[in-house]
């Protein structure tokens, strides 16, 4: 791992309120460059809301946050150029072919035609998509969509890539392969910010934070968290926290 001592995400007292309800309640943390940062929490704990603020599609109610050096309040547009995002739906266009999808997403990130061509050739080769590159994405199995979706999020070589539950609904082998892709990206210096439900995946992260009811209740390396909560695995840590 090539984690560097340089903060790429800095969050301080970040809050998002919907009326009286605080979906995200004064959370603070930093993410280092090149780190794989696991962002855990039960459903409804506020993970997605927090992530939306960091990727610039939701304005925080209060607090401070900088992503890739840009302020979420004032420079959301600059943030968007420097991050990649993959949603839990592996959103691609089903009625476009693999190649057309890559070309389209490359295009909206402002890649040049030649760049797009090189990138998609490289991608197709790496992912072994040679046989299906001209097939509609809708006809591909979920695992492939997941890989393509991740690669598309990485197309413009972002500094940080945000993955929102990127392994939902796929089998353990595919999940394993997917984490290999994540490691490879992290090795190349990309910061990974990942939310997940799977506690075994939490073990793969450099550091994890656990959100409960809008607050970050724990944040450390998986090893130290297990020591702190006297648990054998992350699952127990999570259960102890979530039950309060």
């Amino acid at each position: 791992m090539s984690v560097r001592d340089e903060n790429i995400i800095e969050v301080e007292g970040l809050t998002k309120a919907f009326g009286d309800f605080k979906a995200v309640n004064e959370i603070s943390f930093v993410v280092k460059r090149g780190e794989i940062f696991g962002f855990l929490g039960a459903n409804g704990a506020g993970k997605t809301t927090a992530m939306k603020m960091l990727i610039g599609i939701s304005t925080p109610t209060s607090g401070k946050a900088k992503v890739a050096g840009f302020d979420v309040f004032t420079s959301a547009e600059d943030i968007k150029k420097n991050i990649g995002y993959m949603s839990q739906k592996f959103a691609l266009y089903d009625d476009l072919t693999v190649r057309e999808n890559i070309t389209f997403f490359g295009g909206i990130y402002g890649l040049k035609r030649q760049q797009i061509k090189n990138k998609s050739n490289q991608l197709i080769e790496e992912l072994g998509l040679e046989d299906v590159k001209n097939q509609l994405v809708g006809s591909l199995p979920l695992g492939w969509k997941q890989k393509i979706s991740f690669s598309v999020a990485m197309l413009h070589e972002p500094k940080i890539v945000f993955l929102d539950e990127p392994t939902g609904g796929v089998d353990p082998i595919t999940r394993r392969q997917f984490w290999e892709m994540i490691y490879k990206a992290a090795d190349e210096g990309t910061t990974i910010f990942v939310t997940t439900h799977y506690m075994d995946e939490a073990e793969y992260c450099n550091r994890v934070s656990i959100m409960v009811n809008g607050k970050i209740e724990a944040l450390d390396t998986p090893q130290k968290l297990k020591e702190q909560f006297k648990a054998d695995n992350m699952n127990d840590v999570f259960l102890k926290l979530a039950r309060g």
Partner: protein
Amino acid sequence: MKKFIGFIKKEFYHIFRDRRSLFILFGMPIAQIMLFGFAITNEINNVNVVVLDLSKDVSTNTIVNKISASSYFTVTQLLESQNEVESIFKKGKVKAVIVFEKDFDQQMRNAGIAKIQLLTDATDPNTANTINNYITSITQNYAKEINQDIQLPFQIVPESRMVFNPEIKSVFMFVPGVMTIILMLVSAMMTSISITKEKELGTMEILLVSPLKPYQVIIGKVIPYVFLSIINALVIILLSIFIFKMPVQGSFFLLGLESVLFIITSLSLGILISTMSKTQQTAMMISLMGLMLPVILLSGFIFPINSMPLPLQVISNIIPAKWFIIIIKGVMLKGVGLLYLWKETLILLGMTVFFILLSIRKYKIRLE
């Protein structure tokens, strides 16, 4: 700009790879205009009538001949007695029964008055009315013929002329209506569906996280439909000119501009609908119930607005289609220009601005 072209290209892939949307886009306009033009009509043609002639003299013969000679009626049967009338109506094949009284000719010549009883099947009131008028005018014609040499002391002779549509073709009324429906359907329904589709699939989220600005996303989604709607408007106008011989008395240029304005009005409605709905189904339901029904019922397309109850007349004012129908009828049939249509045009323009502002507001609220 290049981002934009890629976006529009993608949008066309969506449209051309989906058979259903292709059908709605291109099959429906043609099917609808043909249906309304040929099949659905207020005119009557070859209506079956039967005659009960109780006198069988020269006059009744002549009148029956005149009736069956006209293209409106076919005399299918000659009845013998009054008893048969009811059963023949019940069978439903005959729309009218014409009964001549006994000694028709004699009555006319001696008493100066002879009576015809006209029974029409009024389950369809419009047709019954029309039949009534046509047969009355045929008998009056005959009466005039035999009265030629007698000069009545006072006479009022109305000389009527049907202005703007001398042959009273109902297709002239349908074309503006169908064009309005189709432009509304394609522009509003198709765009609202295609925008909500991205929401449903989660790709909208990806687009919003990308450096594309929200307004670029929306404009990119809308532009292909502007093109397709313009093509549709052209197809409809050409069909109505070449197949139904509908005139365009006014300027083509104005007709084009007004159509583009209405297309943009509908698109802005489509965007508004997409901000209100989360799924494609909701978008479709809102478009159909909220747009199509009012367009068909309250725009004056089929039912004249002047004869509606007052509350409905008031409501009809907020329906963009009403104003557009006035505009196209004005340009195509009356040949008037902006001088007469500026009010309607301004209203459409105002509505468009209103819908766009409202969608921007809604869109912002949703993003929060």
